């Protein structure tokens, strides 16, 4: 298992490296932030001066080497716009995004596995169809529409929850959960549907297996068999969703953080791309691709742990 992990990580290294280089070249080709910094009445001289000050006038390969050099010293550089260290900017935003992602997974796993079990138990019946419809519906509505509806209902009409914003869990855990609740629910619509489907499918597949038939034939009650199978199988969709859902999480995070005004990485990255704040984008992309590689490794290992038939 350890050898497998090491091999996978080594194989993933070129991916991360390639992604960084590609993003670097692509972005630098797309223009720089000098014009926006120079303002409404910018002159060519002013532009050139700003480029020189930010070292954007160097050849791209020199800029790349400089960045690489920084990276090897464990530094991510400074934002071209604010001058803050990228490490601080990303660090400040990490908690909100992580909270949102974890809360979303929690909500969607709880509801999704429940719905999936329900559908599988009543296979072919009207409950199964209803769950199916809910799932397709969850896939079909843009998440910002769900977000606006939730805020309007729970924060404005009922006044139960705050409409926006974030409070660090270390500051006030209760307030943290109140702030994260609505965004997590808004984001979980897609996942919920996904998890419910996977749960249903994997349950049905397992229920058809020989050993289950044997158990039934040996007189185990239907309910007992079902619960056993269901519980053992619940882990699989959770793991799958974490693997598959990474990209979807990030798309959702960008929108949800805007709707609920959460200070997270999604907003940071959109702003950075739009402002061509290279050091920030490069750092975040690097972070994302490393997380992606690690996540996939963990998912594969988890599969092996959950399903003894898989061996690496």
């Amino acid at each position: 298992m350890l050898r497998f992990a090491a091999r996978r990580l080594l194989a993933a290294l070129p991916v991360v490296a390639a992604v960084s280089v590609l993003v670097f070249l692509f972005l630098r080709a797309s223009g720089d932030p000098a014009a926006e910094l120079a303002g409404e009445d910018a002159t060519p001289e002013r532009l050139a001066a700003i480029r020189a000050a930010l070292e954007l006038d160097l050849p791209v390969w020199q800029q790349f080497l400089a960045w690489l050099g920084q990276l090897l010293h464990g530094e991510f550089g400074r934002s071209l716009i604010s001058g803050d260290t990228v490490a601080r900017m990303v660090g400040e935003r990490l908690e909100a995004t992580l909270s949102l992602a974890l809360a979303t997974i929690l909500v969607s796993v709880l509801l999704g596995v429940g719905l999936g079990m329900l559908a599988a138990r009543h296979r072919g019946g009207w409950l199964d169809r209803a769950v199916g419809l809910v799932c397709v519906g969850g896939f079909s509505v843009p998440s910002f529409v769900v977000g606006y509806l939730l805020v309007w209902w729970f924060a404005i009409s009922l006044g139960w929850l705050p409409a926006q914003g974030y409070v660090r869990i270390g500051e006030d855990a209760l307030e943290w959960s109140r702030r994260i609740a609505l965004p997590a629910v808004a984001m979980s619509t897609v996942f919920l549907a996904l998890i419910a489907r996977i749960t249903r499918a994997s349950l049905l597949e397992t229920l058809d297996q020989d050993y289950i038939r044997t158990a039934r034939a040996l007189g185990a009650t239907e309910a007992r068999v079902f619960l056993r199978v269901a519980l053992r199988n619940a882990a699989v969709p959770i793991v799958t969703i974490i693997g598959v859902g990474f990209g979807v999480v990030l798309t959702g995070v960008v929108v949800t953080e805007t709707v609920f005004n959460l200070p997270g990485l999604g907003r940071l990255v959109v702003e950075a791309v739009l402002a061509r704040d290279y050091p920030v984008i490069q750092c975040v992309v690097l972070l994302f691709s490393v997380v992606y590689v690690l996540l996939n490794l963990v998912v594969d290992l988890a599969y092996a742990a959950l399903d003894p038939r898989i061996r690496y």
Partner: protein
Amino acid sequence: MIGRRSVALGATALGVAGATRAAAQGRSVLRMAKTSIPRILDPHFTTSFTERDFGYLVYDTLFAVDKSYTPKPQMVERWEVSPDRLAYTFHLRPGLSFHDGAAVIAADCTTSIQRWAQRDGMGQKLAAVTERWQVLDDRSFRLVLKQPYELVLASLGKVGASVPFIMPERIARTPGTEAVHEFVGSGPFRYDPAASSAGVKLVFHRHAGYVPRAEPGEWASGAKRPMVDTIEWIEFRDGMTAVNALTNNEIDLIHELPHDLAPLVEAERDLRVMVHNEVGQLGFVRFNCLHPPFDNVQVRRAVALGIDQRAFLEALVGKPEYYQVCTSVYSCGSPYETQQGVPGFNLAAAREQLRASGYDGKPIVQFHATNSATAGPIGEVLTRALRDIGFTVDVRAMDWSTFTRRRLTQAPPPEGWNIACSTWTAPDVMDPVVNATLSGAGKQAPWGWPSVPEMEVLRERFSREPDAAERRRLAAEVQRLAYDQAIYMPTGTFKALAAFRSNVTGLFPAPALMLWNVGKR
């Protein structure tokens, strides 16, 4: 230097006393929402409106204009002008101190003004006629001019970005092409970088050592009293979310509330709306004068005739209380406001003018910024207006950052552009010199590059003219020429709103975000 240190000690003592008092009373925090918060922060480095607003909280100015754009002394106690009008001597008020405790001395002022002058258009004009800045003693300094220049006080008190804010000398020595990263001012509020988070919120505390003027406050002039202990400036990209937060008592104030959301605020018993920035924001259409068809003044005139400000404002704002048809290139409320040379809307005449101009029907390229809350909708109405006049329009949509970059390219379309729009605020255009869009300097002018040499002569004469009545005449002449040559077209003024909870007191009309004298019950 001894003087400086003793003041510093006094200020520190005051600071401690102030903090203790506030703690005893319970700290008052004003939570303010705005579409964006500044990221660069250095108000000399950029002409961005958010940095100007940040600057007004943190820094102070030598002079400041009241609402008639008359420069009033602010940090300056008194000043003298030599009879030949070539030397201005300024004396600072006593007791001025920076947030780090140091007293404000003359060298801070001369260095800051010279740094500001590297970037700002008005500053560059001032620098061009400046012989030298001379420190006389800790509290007095002198400006010696090469030639008479009548916009000295107007420049030092200018309220449009970038504003000549005063920083400590050690920071102001940074070249103007490099942004500074330490923000120490002598304004009513102290910036707290440790409590702030880039792109999320900025935190300011009362500058306990601030000595306000005795005169009543108006715009940036007169008394600027910090009335709350702490200001939190929070970014709300989404106006709807900000209104929700205000309704739920999660924030106290929204600066620049989108007009369409005003009814929601009005419907709540404990919320208020006011027209905060009456002189407002001005949309404008810019032509690329380097390439056909807009290198031909006849074609530009067709557009000038076909622009109906009312249509733009009605489409963008809707409610007449919140907008103003304003055809003066100096904005309405400026001392130079005039109706000289205004073409007047006439669609039939515009079509006829276009036919007569020899426009060949080739598509014109309009650059359009999709994610700008102001320039975006203006562009959409412009497209419509251009098609009504008879143009074939090719709309190139892009994000704001790309727009600011690509509009600077002087290459012909499709790489470059033919027509585009953007916005100013009123103080940015209040006279012929500060209004950079009036430049006729050809390729040296801002994007659009109109070449009208006569314009530069007129603007130069304006800046040297000591007589106020003659200056107004020259300004009218500049506007006549601007419209005759159709250098650019204003699309009307929309006023900015503020929404706040009823326990917020003292919010006053201002051309920028000004939060002194604003308290919380």
